[in-house]
């Protein structure tokens, strides 16, 4: 719980810093959803964490960007831009926070109606990092106690069944 809480704070701090450092041209993904008509076909800039996987369809690559509230798919054609991404967000990994600029489409004709951003520029704002898998000592003690209790139950039940069986045979 603590680990995830710390993770959240770091993500938020990273995003806040990124916003401050790279100016106010950054648009929240929610804003793209809410006012899609205004941004349709326009060049937009978003900042967020790269999560999941980089998926390729021929020369096209897809990455998903999480700006802290919402996610959006980004289409990248330039291999050199992809090469900038070093860490992708997963369990125990906070992915690179990137600033991407590109053309937004609510229903992209080229990609069969996907909502996407065709990326033209990508910069890593803050590099990703790995989190430690901290084990709670209290949880370890509880699991040992439960293991002992389970073993006692199993042996007790087994003993009772053996006694029953032998009593049945005597009858």
């Amino acid at each position, binding site marked *: 719980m603590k680990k995830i809480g710390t993770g959240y704070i770091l993500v938020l701090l990273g995003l806040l810093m990124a916003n401050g450092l790279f100016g106010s041209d950054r648009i929240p993904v929610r804003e793209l*959803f809410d006012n899609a008509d205004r941004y349709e076909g326009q060049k937009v800039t978003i900042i967020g964490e790269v999560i999941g996987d980089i*998926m390729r369809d021929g020369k096209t690559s897809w990455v998903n960007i999480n700006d802290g509230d919402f996610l959006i798919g980004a289409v990248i054609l330039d291999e050199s831009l992809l090469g900038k991404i070093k860490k992708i967000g997963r*369990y125990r990994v906070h992915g690179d926070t990137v600033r991407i600029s590109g053309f937004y489409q609510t229903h992209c004709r080229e990609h069969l*109606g996907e909502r996407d951003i065709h990326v033209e520029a990508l910069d890593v704002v803050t590099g990703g990092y790995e989190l430690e*898998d901290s084990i709670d000592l209290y*949880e370890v003690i509880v699991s040992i106690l*439960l293991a002992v209790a389970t073993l006692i139950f199993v042996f007790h039940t087994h003993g009772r069944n053996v006694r029953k069986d032998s009593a049945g045979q005597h009858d």
Partner: protein
Amino acid sequence: MIPHFSREDVNSILHYIGKLTHGFGIVMIVPVFIGILNAEWAPCIDFIISSLLCISIGNLLLMTFPLERDLNWRQGMSLVALSWLVAMLLGAMPLYLSGHYKSYLDSAFESMSALATTGLVVVNDLDHMAYACNFWRHLMCFIGGQGIILVALTLFVKGGSAFKVYVGEAREEKIMPNIVQTARFIWFVSLTYLVIGTLILFLINLFRNISPGRALFHAICLFMAGWDTAGFSVQSQNILYYHSPAVETATAMFCLLGAVNFGVHYAVWTGRPKELLKNFELKAYVMSILVLFALVCVGFTMQFPFPDYVSFFRKTFYQLISAHTGAGYANVTTYHFLKYWPPLALLGIIMAMGLGGSSSSTSGGIKILRMCLFYKGIKKEVKILTSPESAVIVEKFHHIRDVTVEDNHIKMAAMIILLYITMYLIGGLIGSFYGYPFLSALFESVSATANVGLSMGITSPAMPNGLKVVYIIQMWMGRLEFISIFVMFKFILSLKSPQ
């Protein structure tokens, strides 16, 4: 006079609850292995604690409440209803310990959503969840889709008790003469498709350059949630995450397979493929998909946001299949529903969700067979009224075998249809009471009761706790199709009232 429940009833029910709890503890060991493979030590401890706690409680119940005789009908029905609540609470344990849920209520909501194969989610930061925990979410979908009791049937329940609990879990047909054989056949079919489906999705993922380990993980999880029409996904964007028509086609096929009656699967597997063309329920299902898609198309004539018809077909037909099979996979965002779907198209999706898939399948909702029976019942009544008084009117249809429509079939079908519609409306009204627009509230209510999982944005960690409880009840009642739950309430009331 209806007999009151006795101490013997309580003993029998709690004995089997003990077996279920024990079994759940053993199943929880599977995610421990996933955790070990990925060096996720903290989640491993969470699962070890949960597993040991389940095994201990199960043993305690088994020792305290010895089984005296086979279950009777009321015990069987009450056991099923209670089992699902117990399973929800047990399944929620490792989820809660993961720290991805705001409260135990949220983890219980997710657990019921997985077990009832609904697919509504209240998880926080799913994209950073441990593999072990994410696998558990999907494994619960697989267990719940098969039926918790069906799982138990193949392992623990013997003798005459088996059929009583099988029926209680909203499955009626005996595909094979023996109910345990039927349960094993369902497992055999599901596991065979699991291998085939996982392989197909694995290859698609691999082809898209996803690393082999993650490709396999995504493939297994997606198949389990698709086949069992649960609609959970590994990532928070659901199917939208993949941006892939290939993944969408594969998952739609698996959802459709899961929504077909296991009796039809059996017929095809045993060399009777003509059943596919003759089966009345299947023909009605195809007809229903076409009619409702036509409704969605008409809806979009008012407002067409897509750039071309291919994009339109991809997004809308997938959503319709997802709704009609009860899967709830989404290749559009909730915002898309809110902003771009005209009310008539949304009505088509709501109707598809409400109707659901075939009887004795993994999908929820009213079920097509009941609609067929209802239709045949009306047809029979019209024929009776328009024929000479001496005429004997017989209505028949083909469903695995030739079935003669009897009055009790129609009565039962009409009663369940009415209960579902009532539950859909009650949930919708409660949603409106909480301040949500009625159409969105109705959408969410139908989605919860019919165990679909599509959302118009109401379901989230931030929604009111009262509404979470309402949706849990709807998912539970919808999955078990009401009757066993009514028997359980009768049981609880009879315990309180004097003999």
